């Protein structure tokens, strides 16, 4: 499945049509970003001394590096959970009748129809000490004392996976839908079992959707400030909360700006790893 850009002559369209959006982005995205970068290049909170001191501080501070590392790892965990749970849903979607398809798409989209705050509070109700899970397990006599689910890495991953699931499932549904249905039959008639068909045909051909889904889920998961702070609580510190503390509580704007820039670059690096992996695997086959 080639996703090479169509060789269409871009200049034949009036570039002026893109001007309003370009202007909007310039004013409200590029300009603040530059301002942030500018801010991060100051060694003191008053903004009098230039230098790379904030970056040096972050990159030599084990605590800061730890927060960055655990945030990136958290993103990987959430993405993995979403992929493992989302793929079967997308696969199922392509194999059921139109009625069930409507139901599946509704279930997939449901998280998007509720506010993130509400969804996150729902998870607090479910995961809390007196929450649904603990109450059920205790009444069944499976556990004596409540399990600690809230304010743990596990709780955060579960809550984030639920919140970000549509971002994974929707691109997967699209990618699987683009695969010629006959290819399954062709693979089977040539003697391949379902696992071989899945790994040699379905998975490689759905890779554009996997990459897109992983990129979106990853980026959304590690920047989900509300869910991270509410379900993670005070004990779990991730980059968005760290950044917020530095800026709002400690008023250390240059350091907060440097954290932002480093975080941005780290996310870009991870995303480009995803994209490169995708390109490499698509290149397989002598394209």
């Amino acid at each position, binding site marked *: 499945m080639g996703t090479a850009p169509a060789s269409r002559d871009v200049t034949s369209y009036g570039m002026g049509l893109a001007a309003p959006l370009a202007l909007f982005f310039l004013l409200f995205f590029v300009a603040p970003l530059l301002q942030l970068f500018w801010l991060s290049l100051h060694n003191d909170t008053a903004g009098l001394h230039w230098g790379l001191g904030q970056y040096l501080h972050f990159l030599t501070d084990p605590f800061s590096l730890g927060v960055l590392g655990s945030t990136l790892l958290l993103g990987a965990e959430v993405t993995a959970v979403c992929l493992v749970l989302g793929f079967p849903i997308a696969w199922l979607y392509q194999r059921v009748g139109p009625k069930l398809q409507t139901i599946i798409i509704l279930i997939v989209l449901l998280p998007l129809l509720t506010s993130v705050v509400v969804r996150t509070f729902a998870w607090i109700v479910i995961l809390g000490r007196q929450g649904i899970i603990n109450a059920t397990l205790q009444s069944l006599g499976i556990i004596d004392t409540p399990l600690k689910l809230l304010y743990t890495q596990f709780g955060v991953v579960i809550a984030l996976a639920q919140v970000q699931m549509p971002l994974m499932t929707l691109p997967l549904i699209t990618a699987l839908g683009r695969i010629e249905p006959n290819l399954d039959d062709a693979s089977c008639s040539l003697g391949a079992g379902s696992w071989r068909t899945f790994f*040699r045909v379905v998975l490689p051909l759905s890779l554009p959707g996997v990459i897109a889904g992983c990129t979106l889920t990853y980026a959304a998961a590690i920047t989900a400030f509300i869910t991270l702070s509410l379900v993670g609580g005070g004990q779990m510190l991730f980059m968005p909360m760290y950044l917020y503390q530095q800026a709002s509580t400690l008023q250390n704007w240059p350091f907060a700006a440097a954290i932002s820039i480093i975080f941005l670059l780290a996310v870009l690096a991870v995303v480009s790893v995803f994209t490169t992996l995708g390109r490499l695997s698509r290149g397989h086959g002598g394209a």
Partner: protein
Amino acid sequence: MAETQGGRSLVVDAVTHRYPSGALAVENINLDIKGGEIIALLGPSGCGKTTLLRIIAGFIAQTQGRIIIGDDIVDTLPPNRRAVGIVFQNYALFPHLSISENVAYGLAARGIDKATRQREAQRLLDLVQLPAMGERLPRQLSGGQQQRVALARALAIKPSILLLDEPFAALDKNLRLDMQIEVKRLQRVSGITTLIVTHDQEEALSMADRVAVLSHGKLEQFGTPSDVYDRPQTLFVNTFVGSTNRMPGVVVSADRTAAKVRLDAGAEIIARPAGGALSEGGRVTVCIRPEHLQFVGDETGFAGVVGMSLPLGATVVHEVTTADGSGVKVSQARIGETRALENGAAVRLAPLAPSLANAFPATL
């Protein structure tokens, strides 16, 4: 896996398939196909021929009946264990794999080592006359080339049966003829039992040793191309295969081999009772092909008035309106100077021979 290439027989034994909705897809189909034969499953779309192909391949489990390949009843085997090669209508090549990887796919599934796979893929690409295309991707090939690759891929697993689903439908006319010759050549070389599903009667008649004509899920006739064309057993076969004139009439007298029919167009002719015995006085439809009608000078035959004449190259087709107001077509070979017929000329027509007029009991 079958190691013997080709030559295995295929028996479709009283196969019936019912959709979950209860509607019949195919009903009591019996086909006895000898090893090495080319069979065409011919019928209009929706007649059940693709369903039958998918039942043989194992993608659909039939409601009743058995599929027997060689000496094995294969009904319980999934498609990946039936060793049936399939060429799909849209070829279904794996778009992310190179041409040689496509051809070698079935061999990899059988755990054959890489060196042998590559050698075998190259041998098959040579066989389908695409020796230098192994490194390319399917989308870099033309439709005809993709079809050859699909054939090579299906043949690579040394299947006992080769199934082709409307294989030439997507090709333009000249390429179609080339590929038909190519498939027939490959079939002769490999000796593999081959089943072609098609709605194109010319394709069926030119390629197959025997033709199975299907209509509404039922087998109308199973016979050689000349059986099906010259000795159709049902009105459907007579009208679906080739073109024909349908002339209504009444049976004057009949025995098992010949019937005297009084045509509504105004003549008594001798016809062949094609669909079984006919009863005296019963309404019949007599089918006479345009090339089996001739102009006669005497008072035999029925009268008509020439309308349009269409010169089609090797033949000329005349439209003639008969006394009962219906139109018949007459096809004349253009040998030397054909008799010029003017618009409005009065003529008389008769079938070339009684065996070339087929009488079927009229359906309401």
